[in-house]
Every structure is written in C-alpha cells, then in structure tokens.
C-alpha cells in the first residue's frame, strides 16, 4: 500500500505514471483519458488494504454523479426557479459530509473515506452552478476526472469544475506544456522540502517532552509553522503533479505569514477553501440578505456574513469544539477588522505608511498563530 504524497513508494509510483503523461503533453495530445485511468488505478492501489474505504468512495461517487445528473435533468425540464428542489439537492449532496463529520449525537466516523470534505465541496460546486445555469451539460467522464483527479484527492486544493474542464479538454501548445512541466516539477521538489524537511523538523520538535512542546507559547508557534510546512508542502506537491497532467490546479498558499490583516490572511491561507466559502457561502448569503433587506445597515450584513462564513469554515474541519471555536475566532476577527477598517479614521490615515504596514503584519501574524493554537486542540483538550 502507498500513502498519498506520504512515502517513497508513492513517489516511485508517481514518477512512473507521470512518464506517459509527459509524453502526451509534449506531443500535444489530450492527457485527460489517461489521467482518469491513472486516477482510478491510484485509488485502487492506495486503498487496496481498505476495501471498506474503496467501497465508500465508490458509493460516494456514484451517488453524487447520479444526483448531479438528475438535478440537471430536473432543471432542463422545469426551469431554474424551484427553490425547494435546489435546497433538497444541496442537502442530499452534503449528506456524506453531514454523516461523517459530526462528533456527538449522530456519529458515523466509520463512513469516512480519504478526502471526503474536499470531494464533497467539489460536488456541491457543480450542483450550485447547475442551478445558476452556468453548467448546462453533464459528462460522466469529465465529472469523474474532476472528483477523482488523483493529485488532489486526499486534501485538495479544491478546484472548480468549469476551470478544470477547460484544462482537461484543451491540450496546451508544446511550449506552454513545457513551462507547466518545469513549474510542476519544481513545485513538487519545493513542496517535498517543505513537508518532509521543515514540516518534519517542526513535528519532531513538537513531540512530547521535546523543545517546542514544553510550554504553550513555543508550542503555538511551532504548531503554526508545522501546519504551514506540512499542508503547504503537500498542497504545492499536489499542484505541481497536477501541472504535469496539464491541469492548472490553483495554488493554496501565498506567503500567509506576511498578511497585513485577517482579511488579507484569508486571501493567502488555504486559498481554495476560503475562496470556495467566499463564493458559495458568503456571497450567496449576503446576496439573499441584501435582496430581502433583512438589515438596514451594510456593515451588519457584512458582519453576519463573516460570522456565518467562518463558522462554516470551522465546522467543515469537524464538529469538535476546537474547530468550531477556530471558526468563531476568525469570524469575530473578520468582523472586528471590518469595523476597524470602516469606522476608524486612524486606519484610513496611516494604512499606506510603511511602519503601519509592518506593525499590521506583526499583529496579524500573532493573531493567526493564536488561531492555530485553538485549532490544535491543545486549549480545549488539556
């Protein structure tokens, strides 16, 4: 058995399956049919020891695909105005996540499988954009490729279907593919350095009794960096491997620790998740609130939007107290940032000054690190 971007066996396997992809890319042929076959093979090889996970992932795929197909048929026959159908479809689409994530009264963690949170969000995006009239056809192979694309299977990044299909359907000219290939290989090397070099180093130092584990403050910074190098490194490798298959999976991180505000941080940290939530939760919620004139005040609408959006972000990670608190913490920080930026003349006066920007980076960095400490569970389980 091999572990997704986790052991030497996977990288040997990856190198072998990439060779035909490179040949297809350099000869300007479509990589997608081969990529889909490799993705299915990879899943089978990775989950060979866990028939249960394999079966669950298979059921998930069949269920979501059938739902998308039926949803589109319904929309074509009855138009796009049926709110009840829309809500029902989204609820059913979210069911796999809703059954496996909660911890408490209703709990089926054994129904979980690799990448479920990431895959479900991709499936929901397709359903929502069908309702919006942006996706008007359902191709089973394209849908399978989007959901099961193996470089991003276990932990994203969360790509979008229309963007993904564009890459999968149109092989780039040779020189463009060469650039993608070069970039992809470099990112995989860099990502491996992040994850297995720096990430492992922090992990080592965070273990019980070692240097960074001894007090809460060193643990907090150590954990924050470990999270970044581990997840950032994985994401970079996933994006790099995608490039080799001609898919421009979006980057997930962009220098998060030099963010000048919490809002800016969410444009730099786990970007594909935060943009997904921005587009499918925040924007849609605030749009509904504005259209129905629920709040008189623009700021109130924004603040409710931030709180709900970030709480969903927290719960998406799991329903344990640490994740809900993490979401709420960021929701409150976003709300306060919004108040501060819109109400205080001080901000407007100094926001472009170098000293102010540097100070903002330092303050944001510490707020973010405290958030990771909540996320780590050390505060809630100690």
């Amino acid at each position: 058995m091999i572990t997704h971007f986790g052991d030497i066996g996977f990288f040997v396997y990856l190198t072998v399956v990439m060779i035909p992809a490179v040949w297809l890319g350099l000869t300007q042929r479509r990589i997608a049919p081969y990529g889909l076959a490799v993705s299915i093979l990879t899943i089978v090889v990775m989950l060979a020891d866990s028939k249960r996970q394999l079966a669950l992932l298979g059921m998930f795929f069949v269920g979501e695909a059938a739902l998308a197909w039926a949803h589109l048929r319904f929309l074509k026959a009855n138009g796009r105005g049926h709110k009840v159908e829309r809500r029902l479809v989204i609820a059913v689409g979210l069911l796999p996540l809703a059954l496996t994530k909660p911890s408490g009264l209703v709990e089926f963690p054994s129904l979980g499988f690799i990448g479920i949170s990431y895959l479900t969000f991709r499936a929901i995006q397709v359903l929502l954009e069908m309702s919006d009239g942006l996706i008007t056809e359902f191709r089973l192979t394209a849908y399978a490729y989007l959901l099961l694309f193996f470089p991003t299977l276990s932990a994203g990044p969360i790509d979008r279907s229309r963007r993904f299909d564009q890459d999968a359907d149109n092989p780039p000219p040779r020189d463009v593919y060469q650039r993608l290939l070069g970039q992809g290989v470099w990112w995989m090397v860099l990502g491996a350095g992040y994850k297995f070099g720096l990430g492992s180093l922090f992990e080592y130092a965070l273990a019980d009794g070692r240097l960074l584990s001894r007090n809460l403050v060193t643990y907090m910074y150590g954990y924050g960096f470990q999270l970044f190098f581990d997840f950032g490194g994985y994401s970079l490798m996933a994006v790099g491997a995608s490039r080799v298959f001609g898919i421009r999976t979006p980057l997930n991180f962009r220098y998060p620790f030099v963010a000048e505000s919490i809002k800016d941080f969410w444009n730099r940290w786990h970007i594909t998740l935060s943009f997904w939530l921005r587009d499918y939760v925040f924007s849609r919620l605030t749009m509904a609130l504005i259209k129905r004139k629920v709040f008189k005040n623009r700021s109130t609408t924004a603040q409710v939007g931030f709180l709900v959006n970030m709480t969903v972000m927290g719960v998406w990670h799991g329903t344990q107290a640490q994740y809900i608190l993490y979401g709420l913490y960021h929701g409150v920080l976003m709300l306060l940032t919004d108040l501060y930026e819109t109400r205080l003349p001080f901000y407007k006066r100094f926001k472009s000054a170098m000293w102010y920007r540097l100070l903002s980076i330092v303050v944001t960095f510490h707020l973010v690190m405290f958030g990771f400490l909540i996320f780590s569970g050390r505060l809630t389980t100690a």
Partner: protein
Amino acid sequence: MNEQQRATTSALITQVCGSDAVLAEPDLDLLEAGLLDSLALVELLVGLDEEFGLEISPTEVEREEVSSVNKIMAFVEAGLSRS
C-alpha cells in the same frame, strides 16, 4: 447602453465603492485599491438585478472582469445587449 443606463450604472458604482472619486479614474484597479471587496461586488450584482433585471450569480463573473469602472461599464453593456 443609453445615457440613462450609463448614469444609473455610475451611480451604482459610486454607491457600492463608497467613493465619487472612482469615476474620475475609470481604469483604476478597484480590487487593488480595496474599493471593491466581496460585499461590494454582491451589492453591485444585486443593484444590476434591481435596476436592469440582470440576474447574475456571484460565480458567473470573474473578479478581473469587473475590476475597474470601465470594465464594469463594458460588463453591464454586454449584459444589457444579451437581455
């Protein structure tokens, strides 16, 4: 796009960006200048729906498509000519 529609769009942009000055610099990048955040974009879309009946979902428009006053004008013009 007639004068009336142009004036309505200008008023809408001024309102959602919270600044009259943007009209004087129609190529200014509103995203970079921090004048068109996620909520402002939603307000713009709701405004276009209310004023012109243009129903646009948040992911139908790429941010770069509406990142300046001129681009918004072109976007509205394209929308009106389709409807």
